[in-house]
């Protein structure tokens, strides 16, 4: 399983990628939308974890762009804004598979990833 982490906080994605690697998951990270798109062009990914707020392009728009180009790619959103209820409703609207609130619990993330990939 190869996943792509996109968040403007480099330290966050870097650490998260490392933690996922420890758990045997190949994770790459990008801090901008453009960098993320470049990664996708180079290699195939199973899952993208996107921050809702990104510099330049919003996570939602980036999600649309990626979904159009790579229909098989699964998505999980991360956000530091709002409550659980909002994003439960929001994920139904955007078609994203899951929303997670920051700070992210790694076990929860692993759990959701497994569920998505297992489907």
């Amino acid at each position, binding site marked *: 399983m190869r996943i792509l982490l996109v968040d403007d906080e480099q330290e966050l994605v870097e650490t998260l990628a490392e933690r996922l690697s*420890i758990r045997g998951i190949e994770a790459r990270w990008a801090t901008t939308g453009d960098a993320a798109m470049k990664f996708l062009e180079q290699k195939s990914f199973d899952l993208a974890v996107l921050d809702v707020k990104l510099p330049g392009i919003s996570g939602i728009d980036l999600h649309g762009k990626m979904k159009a180009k790579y229909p098989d790619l699964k998505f999980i959103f991360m956000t530091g*804004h*709002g*409550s659980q209820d909002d994003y439960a409703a929001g994920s139904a609207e955007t078609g994203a598979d899951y929303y997670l*609130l920051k700070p*992210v619990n790694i076990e929860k993330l692993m759990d959701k990833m497994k569920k998505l990939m297992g489907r």
Partner: protein
Amino acid sequence: MRFLNRIKPAFWDHRILNGAPYRSQFNFRRTWYAAVFVTSAVVLAPLIFMAFMDYRATRHDMESEILLTTSRLVSNIRRSISYFFDERKSALHFLVHDNNFKMDENPRRLAQVLENLKKSFGGFTDLGCIRPSGIQGVYAGPYNLTGKDYSNQEWFKEVVKRGAFISDVFSGFRHVPHIVMALKFPSSDGSFGVLRATLDTGKFDNLLSNLEIDGHGDAFLVNHKGVLQTPTRSHGKVLERISLPIPDFAPETRVFPWTPKTGDPLVIGYRYITDTPFILMVVKHKQELMKAWDNTRKELIEFLAISVAFILFVILWGATYLVNRIYESDQKLIVSLHQVEYTNKMASIGRLAAGVAHEINNPLAIINEKAGLMKDLFLFKKEYQKNQVLMGLLDSILGSVTRCGKITKRLLGFARHMDVSVQTVNIEEVIREVLGFLNKEAEYRSIRISIEVAENLPNMDTDAGRLQQVILNIINNAFAAMENNGNLRVKVVMEGEKDILLTIADDGCGISETDLKRVFEPFFSTKTGNGGTGLGLSITYGLVEQLGGTINVKSELNRGTAFTITLPLTIKEKEMKNSCAYS
């Protein structure tokens, strides 16, 4: 005083806050005074002026009428008196110019003439012919006056000089009031004779005393010296001097008012009767004549007084009503402005809180990941795996991060409601969310909070932001009213099918009965000097109204206070906006 307090309008005791802008515009008492004074002046001044003018004009008309009727009466009586004398004078003229007149030589003829005169005219007592020497030659009448010498008497000298004479009333040697009328005539021997007739005054006494004169009036004759010639009702007896002034000579009838030193004012009409020594006087009591005017005046004053009282009542009522309406609108406006300010402030705080929460979330996430990574690394390396101290420290960091995360989530959840209007909410969640902020304070102060929510309570479609403000305001007030170890009870039940009933009760200090009536009034605060603006509950009242609900309060001093709020389950966004516009 109690009555005054009851009718006293709300604006009367309004106090202007020191330093408030446009202070002069909020002096409602001055506005009321100005309204009352200006309206009264504009309305009453013309009314009183008109009434005064009418009063004067009517009075003047009345007085003119009195003078005119008196003048007419004097003229009419004068005509009768003149006629009386003219008639008798003409009869005597006829006799002396009759060619057959030989009475100065024939006493029997004279007696016959006297008899005829008595029958035809009346008023004649006797008749005599006097020779140029002044000796009465022939006499017909009840006394024996033949041969009486009149040569020294004034009237004889007068008649010889002027040809005719009418005397004053005098008693003479008969001691009966009478008048002498004398005519000079040429005698058959070429000399002259004087025909002298005595007239009984009773005839014209009756003429005057039988007159009915209004205003307790009196008509009588006086001579030019002011001696009464005929009897009067109240101005003296015959041949006495009158107490009234002797009017100056005038060829025509005159009327003048006269006020004696003691007694009522009088109206006096008079006329000098030509060729006689008499002045006809008619005296009336002015007050009697003005009685009709008194009634008119009374009616006029009554009408004016009632009109003024009614107008004043309407002005006072109108001014009070209008100023009160202005005051009420002003108060509503102030509350609305404060409410808008309050809502904006809350929204700003909400946005600020959300921004802060979001900003904190990012470094928090980094701490979370870094600590997580450390834990991961420790777990994979055997030398640290069993180091309980290090693992404990990491778990503590991660635990604190989770706690911080919960706080930021709660803040975000609270702020989230600020900008959204109508949405579906679970009231229990809203209550718990609000209480979440106050839990720590409750813990420190050992305040027990119980939440009782009826089972199967449906979700509400309402403005969650306003709802949470209402709940927060009331619970904040309850916290302020309670001592440590207090009890706060929050209870939600259905009220009918369309409303829910939310009760928030504390066992704090309570509100006194007099204050209880005013708790929802703007600027009413018992927390004076403690930073209370007196707007919290009034804003809460407004918010509940905007949510389409009602709020009531029950309280007992030192026992506690309970607020009951009824809210509709569903409120449409349109309705809510309307209710905002009217607030």
